[in-house]
């Protein structure tokens, strides 16, 4: 319920103040943005503007083959004893010819050049060619309706010669058919590059944004609650798990690498392992166990699970090797399609690169789930004082460890001099914080850990999103060099943040009903996401991904300005060379592609949603 305003007088004063405030606000805006109307009226600027606009509306799309004719006459500069009377012309001819006011002049002297029988209303450039052949433009003139022009100019200085020098006009006559200009061909190449640049960056961004978006969805994350003690255990076990996972991968890779196996063995091993993994998975999940009920033989289950995990790691490593080998041999044998082989090889290398990280993350999640089991058994133990002590000890260790991790990450960036002391102090501060938290919170106090994750993810998204990919590309150009690869990396990073945010908003916008219903069946949080959230968000996710591709196409037109490849590179060059007719072609190409993308994505959206 809103209160009614006290009196109409007060109300109108309020409105007046708001209006005055707005006027001041916009006045400041004008002065800060340096609005200068005089500048817009300046005649020179207007002329330049018109020139550029005229060039822009005449894109260099098509050309004719041209036949050049050179109309020449000679002049002696400077004058000397060699009497030179010029080249005689027949005034009755219908061919174009040039006459000069004098056929002998000193450098710097004024001279009048006249031309007859040229094309009507044409722009003519008159060139001066000394014997060394370096052309110099004397000036330009426009022919009248009789094909006649007069140009008053000066003989250039520093172009002295005792031989007669040439004054020339080049005219081009269109011949043959219309054909595609070189600019259009270059533009086509670059627009294809741009499209693929945008496609790759969108795909990579989408892959990373998909899982991350759930962490940035408030409606899901606020359900995630964990006991205080479990949070401490997670903080301790996550990095330890990551480290162990990383080490295991390194050991496995080293072990396999020492075997120096032949390519055939790699392939066979890979296939064998795939079969074994399939059988193991079937074994593991064949009897659908009811969650919460304990299996009869825990030790055997753990053993078989860890065997399966190690087998999967070995398999992935071998698979990457198979990809690299197959890619190499394909690249050699495919000829023009060698790029397919290179692609497969790259895929293998990517797999090899991400394997340690992936296993590290998986291991840390396993460690965390172990931690939640441990914390449950701690909470189930009867004496309360013991629970409290364990909880305090764990939280001291956890927060000291967390602070140490953070400070060491900072150390990597800032290269502190006295890292040992700093480590000691941060460890102590973290320990103190942990102690305090441990004393304040009961071991079973439910912390809304989801909200913490939500805030962190959202902040990372917002920070990344606020840095334009145009800025990011500068860093990537340093890393991987100028070109479309740097551009796609920068766009991909920006896309992760942008799509992550848009996706997470879609998750927040889903209708809660189905989620509620699935929750009511006793499904866990991940199952709720898979069954109630994902079906609802598929259409908007596709729509947003297409929209982002479309946006990335637009962005990649700009990213070339900073060295990121794509059509922007060409556009920038042409603008810098004042070649506006070529720049116009690129702008048209961008407009065409962007609008086509829009229609296409609209069509696909309609089909899917």
């Amino acid at each position, binding site marked *: 319920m809103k209160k009614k305003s006290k009196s109409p007088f007060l109300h109108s004063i309020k409105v007046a103040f708001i209006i005055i405030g707005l006027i001041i606000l916009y006045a400041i805006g004008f002065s800060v943005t340096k609005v200068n109307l005089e500048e817009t009226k300046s005649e020179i600027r207007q002329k330049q503007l018109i020139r550029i606009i005229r060039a822009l509306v005449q894109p260099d799309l098509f050309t004719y083959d041209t036949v050049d004719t050179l109309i020449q006459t000679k002049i002696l500069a400077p004058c000397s004893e060699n009497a030179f009377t010029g080249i005689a012309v027949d005034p009755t001819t219908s061919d174009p010819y040039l006459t000069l006011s004098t056929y002998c002049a000193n450098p710097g002297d004024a001279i009048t050049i006249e031309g007859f029988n040229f094309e009507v209303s044409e722009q003519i450039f008159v060139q001066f060619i000394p014997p060394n052949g370096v052309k110099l433009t004397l000036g330009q003139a426009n022919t009248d309706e009789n094909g006649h022009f007069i140009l008053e100019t000066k003989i250039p200085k520093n172009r002295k010669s005792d031989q007669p020098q040439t004054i020339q006009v080049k005219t081009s006559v269109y011949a043959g058919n219309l054909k595609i200009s070189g600019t259009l061909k270059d533009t086509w190449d670059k627009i294809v590059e741009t499209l693929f640049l945008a496609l790759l960056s969108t795909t990579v961004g989408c892959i990373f944004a998909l899982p991350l978006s759930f962490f940035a969805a408030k409606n899901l994350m606020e359900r995630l609650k964990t006991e205080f003690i479990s949070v401490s255990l997670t903080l301790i076990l996550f990095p330890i798990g990551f480290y162990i996972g990383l080490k295991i991968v390194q050991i496995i890779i080293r072990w396999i690498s020492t075997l120096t196996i032949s390519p055939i063995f790699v392939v066979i091993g890979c296939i064998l392992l795939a079969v074994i993994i399939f059988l193991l998975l079937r074994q593991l999940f064949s009897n*659908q166990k009811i969650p919460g009920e304990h299996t009869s033989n825990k030790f055997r289950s753990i053993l078989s699970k860890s065997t399966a995990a190690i087998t999967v790691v070995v398999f992935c490593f071998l698979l990457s090797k198979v990809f690299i080998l197959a890619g190499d041999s394909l690249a050699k044998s495919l000829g023009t399609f060698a790029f397919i082989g290179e692609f497969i090889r790259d895929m293998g290398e990517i797999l090899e690169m991400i394997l340690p990280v992936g296993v590290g993350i998986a291991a840390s999640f396993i460690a965390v789930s172990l931690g939640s089991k441990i914390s449950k058994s701690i909470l189930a133990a009867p004496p309360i004082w013991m629970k409290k002590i364990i909880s305090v000890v764990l939280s001291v260790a956890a927060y000291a460890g967390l602070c140490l991790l953070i400070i060491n990450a900072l150390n990597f960036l800032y290269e502190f001099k006295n890292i040992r002391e700093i480590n000691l102090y941060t460890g102590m501060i973290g320990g103190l914080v942990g102690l305090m938290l441990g004393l304040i919170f009961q071991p079973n106090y439910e912390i809304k850990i989801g909200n913490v994750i939500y805030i962190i993810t959202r902040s990372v998204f917002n920070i990344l999103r606020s840095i334009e990919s145009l800025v990011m590309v500068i860093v990537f150009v340093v890393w991987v060099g100028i070109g479309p690869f740097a551009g796609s990396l920068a766009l991909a990073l920006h896309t992760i943040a942008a799509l992550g945010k848009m996706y997470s908003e879609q998750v927040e916008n889903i209708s809660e009903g189905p989620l*509620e219903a699935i929750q009511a069946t*006793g499904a866990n949080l991940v199952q709720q996401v898979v069954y109630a959230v994902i*079906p*609802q968000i598929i259409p908007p996710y596709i729509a947003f991904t297409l929209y982002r591709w479309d946006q990335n196409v637009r962005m990649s037109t700009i990213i070339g300005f900073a060295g990121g490849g794509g059509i922007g590179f060409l556009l920038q060059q042409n603008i810098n060379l004042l070649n506006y007719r070529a720049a116009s072609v690129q702008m048209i190409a961008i407009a065409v592609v962007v609008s086509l993308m829009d229609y296409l994505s609209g069509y696909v959206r309609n089909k899917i949603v």
Partner: protein
Amino acid sequence: MLEINELSKIYPGGTQALKAVTFNVPKGQFLAVIGLSGSGKSTLLRCINRLIEPTKGQIIWNGIDLAALPENEMRLYRRKIGMVFQSFNLVLRSTVLTNVLSGRLGYINPAWSFLNRFSKQDYLDAMKQLERVGIADKAFQRADELSGGQQQRVSIARAMMQNPEIMLADEPVASLDPVLAHSIMQYLDKINKELGVTVICSLHFLDLVHRYADRVIALNNGYVVFDGLPSEIDDMKFKEIYGRDAERVG
């Protein structure tokens, strides 16, 4: 036996939806919950399976206080409590069969369920449940292609997949026409009478209450204002439940 003791719910905004609600439900009873919109019916039903966290009080079922359970254990008890909703709450873009199968999610290994894999037995059960509500032929259609009445039947089939001992029904017929309303109520009645499932159902129409319910509790502004047989609701009681100016329809 389900015992609700002094159950209270205060929403973060300060609205007190339930005020020390206390009642018992014997096993196998068909209990109707009536009251005006906003009287706390939905909150009450959702507190029983903890879709909404009660602020205070106990929900004792088979000797266990559901209100005190941590979320991951509550999940295991929720499996035995089916629920149907006024707005059906089907996942509209999934097939009818997937919607029904999702009733099994609490029972199966999560790893398989991510791949949308269910056991053969679950598929057979799902088809059986669909047959029971008479729409087995729609199993492979998308849920949004179904009419309201059909959707509510799918929703019942989904809840039945949980093999429930209690069925919560939050105004299951409020979005349906009278003919469909009766057919849905008959399904609930059948579940109650034939399978012995306790049904707690919030309703708007008193004739439905008279016809199907064994017992009625009425809520007004978060308080239980009536607890008794449907036949005991006379005009006086009616005014107490719905307010002085209320008039009976139907």
